[in-house]
């Protein structure tokens, strides 16, 4: 795990510091009016004149102590502050997307497997396939077009297409956790809660769509595999109801392959966050990363890449640790 993070930091560090570009990394400390001598002084002050590997060690030291440098696109604020201010919003979006994925994808996969080659199977296969084929950015705009524009034309209740809460409430809740939903609940501010919930629907469904298809497909195939096995026939011949056979006996084993792809799901989610936040003007870290890319704010990008890589690695690690609980056969060995 440490090795993976080390490798990632090396790659990102090389890309941001070592690779010769039009925008040198010291650019953000320099203004146009500075003389060559002043620029040289600043390069020396921030250590940009050292060999690359020495710069890397200084960077690691600073990063571990929480100093990730200044973020250029956020007007030279501390990168870490900018990140931690925005991160909870992304967490809220991602967690709701995960909840939607599991709440819809799991039953859909099970139904698809148990009603193999019947109508529900075809429907869920179409959903799964389109999850693979529909670009997230396009789906987001389609949702906006339908639910915010055409619903208004047709006189139906609309869903907001941007932001995380109505501007009128923007400051009516004290930030405790930074998660709008949780903060509103803690304060008992129901109108704020409703507003942030309504704002969450479209982005969360958009983000969930791709992972939903993936999950459905995996649940379906592993469920089909398990349902063919002898012990299921045995359970059925004991006279157990189909419900018990599927949910008690088959599902537990069918979920094992699902756990192994958690890392992939997280990776797709964290990549998708960038697009979804951009499309829905959601002020989280994903949209910030995109703006940072366009302004060559490598400090922010480094923090974002390393945090997302750490999340993916942690997810994989947790699954590895939890394997024993999910699959008792592994525990016995």
């Amino acid at each position, binding site marked *: 795990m440490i090795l993976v993070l080390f490798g990632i930091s090396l790659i990102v560090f090389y890309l941001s510091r070592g690779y010769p570009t039009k925008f040198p990394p010291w650019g953000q400390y320099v203004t146009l009016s500075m003389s060559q001598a002043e620029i040289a002084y600043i390069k020396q002050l921030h250590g940009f004149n050292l060999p690359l590997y020495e710069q890397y060690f200084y960077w690691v030291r600073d990063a571990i102590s929480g100093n990730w440098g200044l973020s250029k696109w956020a007007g030279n604020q501390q990168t870490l502050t900018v990140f931690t201010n925005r991160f909870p919003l992304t967490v809220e979006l991602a967690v709701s997307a995960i909840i939607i994925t599991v709440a819809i994808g799991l039953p859909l996969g099970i139904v698809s497997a148990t009603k193999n080659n019947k109508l529900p199977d075809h429907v869920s296969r179409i959903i799964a396939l389109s999850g693979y084929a529909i670009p997230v*950015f396009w789906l987001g705009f389609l949702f906006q077009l339908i639910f915010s524009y055409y619903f208004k034309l047709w006189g139906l209740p609309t869903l907001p297409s941007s932001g995380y809460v109505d501007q009128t409430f923007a400051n009516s809740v004290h930030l405790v956790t930074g998660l709008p939903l949780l903060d509103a609940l803690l304060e008992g501010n129901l109108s704020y809660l409703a507003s942030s919930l309504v704002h969450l629907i479209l982005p969360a469904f958009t983000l969930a769509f791709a992972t939903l298809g993936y999950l459905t497909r995996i649940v379906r195939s592993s469920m089909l595999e398990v349902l063919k096995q002898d012990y299921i026939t045995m359970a059925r011949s004991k006279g157990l109801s189909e419900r018990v056979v599927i949910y008690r006996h088959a599902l537990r084993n069918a979920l094992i392959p699902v756990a192994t792809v958690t890392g992939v799901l997280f990776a797709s989610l964290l990549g998708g966050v960038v697009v979804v936040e951009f499309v829905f003007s959601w002020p989280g870290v994903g949209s910030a990363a995109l703006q940072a890319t366009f302004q060559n704010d490598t400090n922010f990008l480094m923090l974002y890449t390393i945090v997302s890589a750490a999340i993916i690695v942690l997810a994989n690690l947790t699954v590895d640790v939890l394997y024993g609980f999910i699959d008792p056969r592994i525990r016995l060995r």
Partner: protein
Amino acid sequence: MIREKESGAKRVRRGKFESLRFALRLLTSNPLVLVGSVLSIAIIGVALFSSLLVKPSLANVVSYSSQLCWGNHLIDWGPGSSICSSGNYWLGTDYFGRGVLSMIILALPLDLEIAFAVVLGSIGIGILLGGISAYGGLVVDETILRITDIFFAFPTLLLALVVAAVVGPSIPTLTFAVLLVWWPLYVRLVRGQILAEKEKNYVECLKSVGASDSRILFTHIIPNSIYPILVQATLDIGGVILIFSSLMFLGFSPKQNLPELGNLVAEGIQNVFTAPWLIIFPGLAIVITTLAFNLVGDGLRDILDPRLRH
């Protein structure tokens, strides 16, 4: 002796014939696969002959007389949209008065080219590094595996984003950025295939008659393990198009009027409410292309999966 040989050859021929028949039956029994194959052949055909169907210079033409209008009466887009007074624009026109359908046809070759380039490049790297990894001993194997681990821990889009930002947006660097995300999967896949094949009897036989490692690898193992790689490649054509068009959509297009599906969607955003066709149809083109190749990949997997034959 001779007769035996003959019957053996006949059996092989019949075996091949039967597997072909099986493939055809599977193709016809699953209408989705058939639709996918027909669609993807049609898409490749349109892409190959796009310059004959639409003049490539159209991308730079500006005609304000037919700006942002809708050309057929089958769909009513609501009060904000306007109808073309003249011309034959099935899918409407964009801000510069160009037909959206023509722009989509012009955009297809670029997207498909990049998809094929990335997938073929990944297969090449996969065979090379996968082969080295499977044959190179423990240390080499571990090193290559750990490197692929590192790339797996990146969110797919993010690495491409960082590379595109640092190296600067141009078609070759964007292709390289997507390739950088894609190759580790193939290294793992090829390595796994080779390791599985290596244990089989025929490899043992080849070794015993003195065939060299590289000969066994390139003339026997890789041809034998090419099918799963082919399936993955077909499935990935769509995936690459998705990632590439996302990058273009997010603003990494090197040129403003570049005919590329993601870029077409991005350029349609400003007029999305008065001309919704600007984002709907280029996006739909991405969906159909990706879906077609995915369906073919699914079908190929079923055809090549020996468990499904009985």
